[in-house]
């Protein structure tokens, strides 16, 4: 560890996070940043950590996988970060995990979902691990006999998307599902999906699995419609946000199924409260699942800190040692926006139940046997 | 044996027969002039002699070696150097470096030697500096050696081009309108320089020029080109009296 000669604000406990605030992926970084701000405020309003206030610092890493991510991390350290709720994306996270390990800083990423992110013992995730989602999706489709012929459209240049795809594929094979079309796109060509759609259509796929983000998914839905192709669409948490795209014809989403821990349109009180608070604070924006993950992340931390009696003058390393143990304690569990009874193992992965939801009448609703019957009947 | 023997050279551009059936023989040590109206094809002949254009017909033999159809680099190595009608210097390099570049094929050391500055580098660079300065002195450019070529006045640029051509140590020097843009005094100086070069470097010179004072002052023989074809050739004084040459080219 190099000189920790940074200014240290001694009366608050400083949470740090880095994520993209500029560039292509800025929306994810901003969502997480907003949610952290909201959560920190909520914690402080409720009396802070045994009286000590929380504060946060957020740095732009442009979702970079190299020096920019490390720069952002170092800037956080210089700003007195004691615990990290980050980073937002896998790319940047992989670039800093060894640093947090060296510096012994506790790291709880809200949204970086690759498996490798949590390979060190000081790193934990709020979101699902990509392979889990891939496996979960394949299992769900197989168990509910949603389809016989499946097409996949994924982003081969993205770790999240190809991570899910890789495990989905092997699990699907194991479960005897028939993947008739494996179509990918890349970061550089993510607006035109005509070739992928026509491949899926020609292969006669009746379900298209979309382990991608909602923005591309919305284009795929639009383009499928104009290509006269109406399969069942199935996706993961990345699809959350579909309904809140400004000015998007949400009727196209009718019948889209997804496995997600969070849905902004869900009717439970906690979600409703959070969504309302978020909308009020940020020009009526609807929070996506990463915002929810980040909110949960801060809340989990606050809970643990209270329990461990963390104070502002503790060193990052001491805090890390305490929180590491506390979070993977068998008795610790947390009920949050993205799941009830969330628990963490020593591997750093979270165990929580994904909800299978379907978009019906412009809102999410839990997936029922009837829905499944209806969709397979088509 | 003649130094340069060109037989039946010809080239076309699209439909235009720019040069046709052109032959010329130049003896070693001669100062030979190529004249003719604008657009007659003089520069085009230079371009074929130096491999810029590939002739469609004919042969070019230099010092007994057939160089027809060879590329510019091979031809330069075989012994022909030239200047250009529209000056082509290495503008962003110093006067000295312009000449040193042309010494390239005579002072060889590898890129590796250069990058790691082995002793050979220092030895050869020193020799090149000396040689280049010696050449520049001939053209009275030695005190401008460290200036950028682009900053030189027009007349000096022409002289530098000749110095650069000489540095490749050719057997035959082609000069394309060396006196263009010079006033009579400067032209007279240039004539002395060309003679000096011929005598002291054992050079053979073929030049294109429209300035009759230079042509009649230094050329021993002339070929006159008109519409791509040889109009006449012979001793300078005689050619300049030829009535056909007078009507086609000289006027009055």
């Amino acid at each position, binding site marked *: 560890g190099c000189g920790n000669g940074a200014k240290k604000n001694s009366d608050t406990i400083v949470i740090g996070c880095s994520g993209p605030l500029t560039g292509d992926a800025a929306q994810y970084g901003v969502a997480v940043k907003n949610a952290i701000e909201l959560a920190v405020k909520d914690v402080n309003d409720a009396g802070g950590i045994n009286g000590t206030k929380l504060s946060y610092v957020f740095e732009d890493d442009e979702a970079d996988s190299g020096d920019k991510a490390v720069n952002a991390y170092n800037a956080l350290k210089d700003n007195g970060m004691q615990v990290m709720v980050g980073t937002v994306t896998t790319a940047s996270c992989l670039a800093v995990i060894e640093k947090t390990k060296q510096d012994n800083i506790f790291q709880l990423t809200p949204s970086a979902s690759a498996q490798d992110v949590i390979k060190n013992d000081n790193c934990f995730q709020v979101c699902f691990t990509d392979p889990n989602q891939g496996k979960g999706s394949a299992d769900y489709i197989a168990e509910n006999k949603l389809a016989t012929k499946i097409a996949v459209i994924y982003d081969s240049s993205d770790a999240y998307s190809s991570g899910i795809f890789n495990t989905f594929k092997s699990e699907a094979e194991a479960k005897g599902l028939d993947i008739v079309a494996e179509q990918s796109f890349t970061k550089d060509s993510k607006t035109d999906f005509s070739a992928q759609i026509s491949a899926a259509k020609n292969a006669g796929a009746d379900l298209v699995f979309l382990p991608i983000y909602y923005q591309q998914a919305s284009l795929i839905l639009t383009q499928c419609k104009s290509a006269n192709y109406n399969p069942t669409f199935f996706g993961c948490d990345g699809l959350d946000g579909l309904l809140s795209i400004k000015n998007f014809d949400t009727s196209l989403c009718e019948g889209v199924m997804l496995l997600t821990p969070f849905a902004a349109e869900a009717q439970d009180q906690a979600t409703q409260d959070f969504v309302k608070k978020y909308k009020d604070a940020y020009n009526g924006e609807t929070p996506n699942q990463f915002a929810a993950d980040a909110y949960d992340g801060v809340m989990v931390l606050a809970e643990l800190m209270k329990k461990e009696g963390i104070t502002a003058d503790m060193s990052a390393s001491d805090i890390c040692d305490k929180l590491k143990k506390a979070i993977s304690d068998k008795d610790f569990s947390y009920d949050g926006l993205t799941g009830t009874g969330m628990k963490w193992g020593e591997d750093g992965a979270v165990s929580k139940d994904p909800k299978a939801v379907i978009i019906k009448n412009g809102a999410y609703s839990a997936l029922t046997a009837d829905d499944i019957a209806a969709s397979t009947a088509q | 044996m003649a130094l340069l023997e060109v037989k039946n050279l010809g080239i076309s*551009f699209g439909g235009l027969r720019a040069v046709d059936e052109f032959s010329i023989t130049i003896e070693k040590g001669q100062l030979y002039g190529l*004249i*003719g*109206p*604008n*657009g*007659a094809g003089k*520069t085009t002949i230079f371009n074929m002699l130096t491999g810029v254009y590939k002739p469609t017909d004919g042969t070019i033999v230099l010092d007994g070696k057939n160089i027809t159809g060879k590329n510019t680099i091979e031809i330069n190595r075989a012994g022909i150097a030239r200047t250009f*009608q*529209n000056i082509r210097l290495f503008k962003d390099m110093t006067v000295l470096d312009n000449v040193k570049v042309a010494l390239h094929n005579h002072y060889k050391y590898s890129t590796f030697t250069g990058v790691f500055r082995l002793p050979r580098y220092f030895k050869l660079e020193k020799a090149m500096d000396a040689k280049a300065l010696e050449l520049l002195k001939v053209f009275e450019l030695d005190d401008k050696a460290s200036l950028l070529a682009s900053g030189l*006045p*027009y*007349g*000096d640029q022409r002289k530098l081009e000749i110095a650069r051509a000489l540095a490749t140590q050719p057997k035959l020097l082609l000069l394309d*309108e060396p006196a*263009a*843009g*010079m*006033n*009579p*005094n*400067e*032209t*007279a100086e240039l004539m002395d320089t060309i003679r000096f070069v011929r005598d002291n470097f054992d050079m053979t010179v073929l030049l294109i020029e*429209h300035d*009759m*004072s230079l042509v009649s002052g230094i050329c021993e023989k002339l070929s006159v080109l008109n519409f791509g074809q040889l109009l006449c050739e012979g001793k300078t004084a005689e050619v300049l009296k030829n009535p056909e040459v007078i009507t*086609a*080219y*000289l*006027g*009055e």
Partner: protein
Amino acid sequence: MAMLEINDLHVNYGMIAALKGISFEVNEGEVISLIGANGAGKTTTLHTLTGLISAKSGSIKFNGVELTKTPAHKIVEMGIAHVPEGRRIFQNLTVLDNLKLGAFTRKDKENIPKDIQDIYERFPRLAERKNQIAGTLSGGEQQMLAMGRALMSRPKIVVMDEPSMGLSPILVSTIFKIIEDIRKSGTTVLLVEQNAKKALAISDRAYVLETGKIVLSGKASDLINDESVKKAYLGE
């Protein structure tokens, strides 16, 4: 009042002073020569005149209008045409297109074809090559094109920078004849020439430029007999 009045003109290239305060004038209908050695500043003078480079100080008045503050394209409209050193023809356009661009500022569209015919008569070679890409013309042909192009704007005054450079003797005579024709047709000419003898022969007056300063001026017929001019510029 003279048509063109240049007063104490200074021009710099970066740190280098190319013109160090020159003054001269050109009257309507005259042919004026500027002579001088290489690098004396002749081209620089003409470039400043037509606005291609800007003056450091001094003034240039054309029929009373200050040119140093006028943008180049306005200067052309006012009736000054420039045959630049090195020709500067449009390399990738045809001969005809080049001539048409010469008439760019003209409002009398209907007369343009006739003027093109006139140019073709003066330079028959251009008529033969009217559809050739100008960049592939021989040097002499390009010079003819540059002159023809300048005349297409029907200027009040033509400034010419070494128009005889690279031309065959017969064409040099032609060019000087054309210059005389031009002056006869009422156009004023400001001529920069290395061929001082010929230039002086057709000029009314001349100025001698040396390293950015005018060192001598007077009637052309006087200068041609001046010993120092003879020695320095006429090669006698």
